[in-house]
């Protein structure tokens, strides 16, 4: 082939690169490995991730849910996972129809009118929601609850730092754990949005409607974030409580924990803001013979057309993860999603009741919860959890000191349908045993 293109050596392929820029030695990356060796290496590394095989009560933005076997099987169809963005609809209808179903499912779950084809994850979806609120309202102040996931808050901070947006924080009630509408004192006609999370970072379910009313009273939008998307199965849909933008982390829908990614940002809005939404949208279309098909649509919002004036810079999104979530949701159906949600809530209630009954442990927050709750230990939580892991082989939850140095004894416990009663009892036993 070199001959055919008139070259004598592979080097000549790079003759347009000035020779002083050419590498003279091979890269110092590891020598080529065979499959056997490579797999053994990654297996060994996996063994060093001790938490991956341990009963776990970690949540806080990433959740252990059961994923039906067919989910991972179907996303491995070559036709899905080795295709790209459906730029050519005639030859990408599989992907397009799946996204259209995804958008519909997200609308149904959130109670919203329009959903996009996905964002990177919950945190970046929230940041984009804040930017969108500014575009929609042309106001520059955004008031954010302190009970939003701390890492989400950090991401929002990063995204808006050069966007001329003032972020203000408002606090939650120390007794209930809910953000207090009363704390929303600074709302005014410069406020673009009020941003909350429900269930919030501490597992407390917010009074979304009350907060929506407060926001709407000054003409601001209510942005609701959800990190535990399975809660849609049991909790009132934000769209029926006044939310204007709902963003969520979709990882709960059958996506592996995978040390934090790839996950799935859900983004849903009211129809009137459709032309301001970031990301891709799939819409219905017909061909000349009237046959239904699907296409990428409203592309004029996007970077490849609008460049710096686009609603977002996003291009590659989370396609395959959105497909996995779609398959998960369609397999589980309304009953399944509800049953998972109910089991999560039931098991969390059981765990909370049993832990609360332990000598020395309290639950500092009183608000209704879904499947996460804060526990206050009689000792420093990080140390307690480390001992629980080492001595009882249980990951008991997240020490809140990671984000809140002023809460040394608190930890966040998450219970899902994958935690058996035996595991919960072992957790309770372990906490009790390590303290007494």
């Amino acid at each position, binding site marked *: *082939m070199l001959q055919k293109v008139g070259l004598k050596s592979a080097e000549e392929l790079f003759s*347009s690169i000035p020779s002083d*820029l050419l*590498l003279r030695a091979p890269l110092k*990356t*590891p020598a*080529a*490995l065979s499959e056997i060796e490579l*797999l053994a290496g*990654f297996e060994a*590394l*996996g063994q*060093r*991730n*001790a*938490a*991956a095989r341990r009963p776990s009560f970690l949540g806080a933005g990433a959740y252990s849910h059961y994923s039906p076997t067919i989910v991972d099987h179907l996303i491995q169809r*070559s*036709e899905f996972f*080795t295709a790209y*963005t459906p*730029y*050519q609809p*005639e030859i990408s*209808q599989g*992907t397009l129809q*799946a996204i259209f179903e995804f958008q*519909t499912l997200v609308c*149904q779950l959130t109670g919203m009118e329009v959903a996009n084809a*996905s964002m*990177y994850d919950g945190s*970046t979806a929230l940041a984009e929601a804040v930017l969108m609120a500014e575009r929609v309202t042309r106001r520059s102040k955004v008031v954010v609850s302190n009970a939003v996931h701390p890492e989400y808050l950090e*991401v929002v*901070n990063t995204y808006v730092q*050069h*966007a001329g947006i003032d972020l203000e924080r408002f606090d939650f009630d120390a007794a209930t754990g809910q953000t207090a509408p009363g704390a929303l004192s600074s709302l005014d006609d410069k406020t673009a949005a009020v941003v909350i999370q429900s269930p919030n970072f501490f597992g407390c379910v917010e009074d979304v409607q009350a907060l929506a009313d407060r926001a709407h009273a000054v003409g601001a939008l209510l942005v609701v974030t959800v990190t535990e998307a399975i809660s*849609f199965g049991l909790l*009132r849909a934000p769209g029926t409580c006044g939310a204007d933008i709902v963003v969520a982390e979709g990882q709960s829908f059958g996506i592996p924990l995978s*040390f*934090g*990614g790839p996950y799935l940002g859900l983004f849903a809005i009211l129809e009137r803001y459709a032309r301001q939404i970031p990301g891709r*949208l799939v819409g219905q*279309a017909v*061909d000349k*013979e009237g*046959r239904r098909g699907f*296409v990428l*649509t*409203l592309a004029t919002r996007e970077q490849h057309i609008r460049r*710096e*004036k686009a609603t977002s810079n996003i291009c590659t999104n*989370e396609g395959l993860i959105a*497909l996995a979530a779609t398959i998960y949701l369609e397999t*589980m159906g309304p*009953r399944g999603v509800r049953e998972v949600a109910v*089991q999560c809530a*039931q098991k969390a*209630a059981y765990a909370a009741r049993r832990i609360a009954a332990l000598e020395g442990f309290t639950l500092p927050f009183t608000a*209704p919860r879904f499947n996460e709750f804060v526990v206050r230990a009689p000792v420093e939580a990080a140390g307690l959890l480390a001992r629980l*892991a080492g001595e009882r082989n249980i990951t008991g939850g997240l020490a809140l000191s990671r984000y809140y140095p002023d809460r040394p004894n608190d930890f966040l416990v998450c219970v899902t349908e994958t935690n058996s009663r035996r595991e919960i009892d072992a957790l309770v036993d372990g906490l009790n045993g390590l303290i007494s």
Partner: protein
Amino acid sequence: MNSTNITKVTTHPTQNEALIFERSQPGRVGYRLPALDVEETPMDELLPAGLRREDELAGMPEVSEVDVIRHFTRISTWNYSIDLGLYPLGSCTMKYNSRLNERVARIVGHAGLHPLATEEDSQGALQVIYELQQHLSEITGLAGVSLQPAAGAHGEMTGVMLIRAFIDARDGEGASAQRRTMLIPDSAHGTNPASAHLSGFNVKTIKSTPEGLTDLQHLRELCARGDIAGLMLTNPNTVGLFERNISEICRIVHEAGGLVYMDGANMNALVGVARPGDMGVDVIHLNLHKTFSTPHGGGGPGCGPCCCTKELEPFLPVPRIVRDDERYRLDFDRPQSIGRVKAFFGNFGMMLRALSYIQTHGPDGLREATEAAVLNARYIAEGLASDYDKPFEAPPMHEVVFTDKRQSRKGVHTLDIAKRLIDYGFHPMTIYFPLIVQGAMLIEPTESVGRQELDQFIEAMRSIAREALETPELVLGAPHTTRIGRLDEAAAARKPVLRWKPVEAASAA
């Protein structure tokens, strides 16, 4: 008599698979869960009625497991994919996605690891991240690497924010406020200006020369104004040419007090051959889902590492993953950091795959892949030269652009050629990008294709060129072999239908 009509059956189940919502049958389920094994709390005690949803998730589909399997298996057949053949989308690097990497990503110790596990409990994963950082640093010649960004555009945003943070730190907030111009060539990908805008920069466009390279004269002029923060350059650029003046370009920008951002989407032309860091580039993003073979997945997920010089490293997102002797840990103590760009650590699953790619290839394999990718593009460039106009003379690197100039004289345009290619069994190339080329057809074969198939592709393109002359209506009406024909995108955008609705609801609306 039209033989298609008599033999074509319109009720074919695979060809007519409906939306899943239209298949829903009340009461059908596709899941099985264990029974609740704890004492049940009365529902009202669990959650006040006012907080519970009342709609029972109405509208969500009720189907069986086999319904789901058939639904997705059927609609999957409507897709083209890399595994079916050449997928020559320029700028997208549609290379083979190794199954071994998929297996690696599913190893329980990795796939089942919670991102908030303690450092102690996640040493394996932190090592994966650390090693990949090291390798990408070696490949790019840049010292600092963050794997946090989730895709190329996200990496761009991160990189541009680094530039801003660096300038603010260097010049002081007040002085740096005067430097708010980001130069971007007219041939750049749309994400470049969009990312620059997100970081509060004003975009100024640099022209390309007739040879398809950055216009140095124009660059000098723009740099002379004293307000530039930097330049975002793709290299090889989006017409597939190496910016041979890259060192000079970097010098000009640096002398003007700016920094050079390189869009690394085209690194498949350079890995193992030349390094951006050696060229004077300050920041780059990579697309692991292009150069490093992680699957495109119908539009993602990606992973868009941001690599930068030592000077910019303090500004990278937190946490950094660092090594102390044999232990890996998260370093949050970076006071100059631009902050977090994503919860947790980025798309870890993609990092596993990319690391597996690097380990599978080894240094020689990485270079050989680059050579094959460039050779294949050259081969296509050569093979199509007689039938299509090439806007630029120079031999291309890993991708080659053609225009529809010659064909459009007969009324056949790039879009038509692309659609006709479908009938020949290929996915179309990237079309109408870059914008500077009239009716651009940007073809990137990658290394994952043999000569036999390149010849088939060339033959198909040449055959279409002949059709464009002899039977243009054939090309204009294409594709002829797909389930559906060209869709009316304009109508779809005018009155967007963005979700399914039940028939009653839909008609009521």
